[in-house]
């Protein structure tokens, strides 16, 4: 079943068309990647999927429901979670608090429960904390629950961002350059982890990635953007051989000589 579907998505910033009529669809339980040179419109496309930008034209559907015009928090409650290209953790909050914020929309408490410390509050808070600890363990940050997010090493911050996104309880996970700044070994570890998420939690994952080895290894499908337009799409092996893709990355004239 199609979980995410975009039709003719257009996003302009003044005179610049960052995303121009992109169609995209992603089936449940799959893992897809969006690649393209810098400034190709990958993150902008992500932002239209998560409601940070409203598309100027076209439609985005999650689970068959149009999300155009919804605020990001509403889209999140529909089961879409994301990480950011430049890590955007709540820096002055602890690891466990970061994850707990991700659960915000799932906490069914009224103000009175909080102020009155009702049994419902204790139950919900206890449940949230236990789940948060599970997620922290899942991404391998156990023992660092009380550390401030800004004091974590870079790789741990990336893990924490994923844990926070998982706390939302997503069906679809959007990861914007998750292996940026990682060694090849760390990237491999992360890929194994993403595969586990799909098999164990039935997640669907969409990546923006620059690390081609990662992309080719893990993706079911690869979509290539250039200057805001989709220039190729398909299984990794096929995309890899596509003349237009090679041209976009390496420039005209050298395309024939330098196939990766």
């Amino acid at each position, binding site marked *: 079943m199609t979980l995410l579907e975009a039709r003719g998505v257009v996003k302009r910033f003044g005179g610049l068309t960052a995303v121009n009529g992109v169609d995209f669809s992603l089936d449940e339980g799959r893992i897809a990647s969006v690649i393209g040179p810098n400034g190709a419109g990958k993150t902008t496309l992500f932002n239209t999927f998560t409601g940070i930008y409203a598309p100027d034209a076209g439609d985005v559907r999650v689970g068959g429901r149009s999300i155009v015009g919804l605020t990001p928090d509403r889209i999140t409650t529909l089961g879409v979670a994301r990480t950011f290209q430049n890590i955007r953790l709540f820096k002055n909050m602890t690891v466990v608090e970061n994850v*707990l914020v991700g659960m915000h929309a799932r906490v069914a408490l009224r103000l009175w429960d*909080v102020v009155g410390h009702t049994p419902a509050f204790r139950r919900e808070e206890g449940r949230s904390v*236990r789940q948060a600890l599970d997620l922290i363990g899942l991404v391998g940050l156990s023992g660092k629950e009380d550390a401030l997010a800004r004091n974590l090493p870079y790789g741990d911050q990336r893990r924490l961002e994923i844990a926070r996104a998982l706390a939302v309880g997503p069906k679809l996970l959007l990861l914007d350059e998750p292996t940026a700044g990682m060694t090849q070994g760390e990237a491999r570890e992360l890929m194994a982890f993403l595969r586990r998420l799909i098999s164990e939690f039935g997640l669907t994952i969409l990546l923006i990635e620059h690390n081609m080895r990662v992309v080719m290894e893990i993706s079911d499908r690869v979509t290539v953007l250039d200057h805001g337009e989709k220039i190729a799409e398909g299984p990794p092996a096929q995309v890899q051989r596509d003349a237009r893709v090679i041209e976009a990355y390496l420039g005209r004239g050298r395309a024939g000589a330098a196939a990766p």
Partner: protein
Amino acid sequence: MTDVPSPSGPTTGAVDVAPGLQRWRSHPVLLNVLVAAALFGSAILVWVVPRSIIAFMAFQASLLVIYLLPLDVRTKLAWAAVALGVLMPMLGTHNGYYMEVAIQVGIFVALALGLNIVVGLAGLLDLGYVAFYAVGAYLWAIFGSPQAAKFLPIEGVFPLPAPWFFAFLILGLAVGAITGILLGLPVLRLRGDYLAIVTLGFGEVVRVLANNLDKPWNITNGPKGITPISRPPLFFEPALSALGIDAPPSVLYPLLFYFMVLGIAAVVIVINRRLEGSHVGRAWEAIREDEVAAQAMGVPLVRMKLLAFAIGASFAGVMGVIFSAKQLFISPESFTFLESIGVLAMVILGGMGSIPGAIIGASAVTILNLQVLKGLSLWLNELRNSGLTVLGYNLADLPSQFEPAKYERMIFGMILILMMIYRPAGIFPARRRKLETYHRGEEPAA
């Protein structure tokens, strides 16, 4: 930052406020004797020399001692109850000025805690906070005085009978919250400096409205202000007489206001703590840290920001009602921009986003203004009038521009500057909650 478990566990319920003092926690008897000595010693000192500011400051310092020593929470609360519930009213009755200081401190503690939610937790810089205080104050001032009869065509109802005051406390809460939402709605999309400017304007608009709404209908009586404002009934007077205690109203009213302010401040502190330690407080802090990320994690920005404005404003609304009843007279001059800045200074001085910080900040600034700087300028004035000669210069020859009273604001400003340079995070900076203080489904720690 560290994996080492903190020395304070939920079982003992102690708060690790002063890590350096932790090693004394195994000597509770000694600590309690110390607290008793400080508290009763300073209280007796105030009783014997009621005019000594230093004696009263020693009493205030002993309250700080209770907070800082590593006693368990229940013991601390018991000592605080003795100090604030018994000793302070006695001392305040002995010297009425100290009661006034205590009431003002209580009012500003509640205001600072309200603003702390908006500025400290949610990170929304509000420079017009006093507007909500004004709304509460005018609410009771108008209906608790003959003023309402000037624009409402009803005869013989106003001023409302004194017991209505208590209904207006709730009404002040509600109207404060609504005003908070009214301010919040247009500024939802604004951040940082822009938000600050709009809230500043809002504060001024409320003051100017109060100043000018004496025509075409005389609602606020303009710059002349409103008086006399009804005070709440002395409902406990018959009970006191039955016990054989006869005290004049001049003693009973300050006591009533003192206990009301104390009670409301205590409730405000509890509400603050509970909000801070819940998904609501975490959502506010997430908004402060990164609005975009917070929203992407499912935090509804609009609702949470409005909630912050509404709750912060409601505390100010309630305290406004009390303020107008206590003062008997209010005018727009009580609600200037400087008042907003004053409350903000309390929050920043104490430590943004920190509840103990807001409390100590409000207390320190109020005591500094009402007591220390006043005392200092009185003392300097005395020196001057006595014709003391320093380095061959007779102080009596100082031109009037150098009058000590004029130094007050300057010294206050200098203290602020020095604090921001040497302790930018405030007196008691916000601390992160440790995992063990979170409920995990078991019985929570106190």
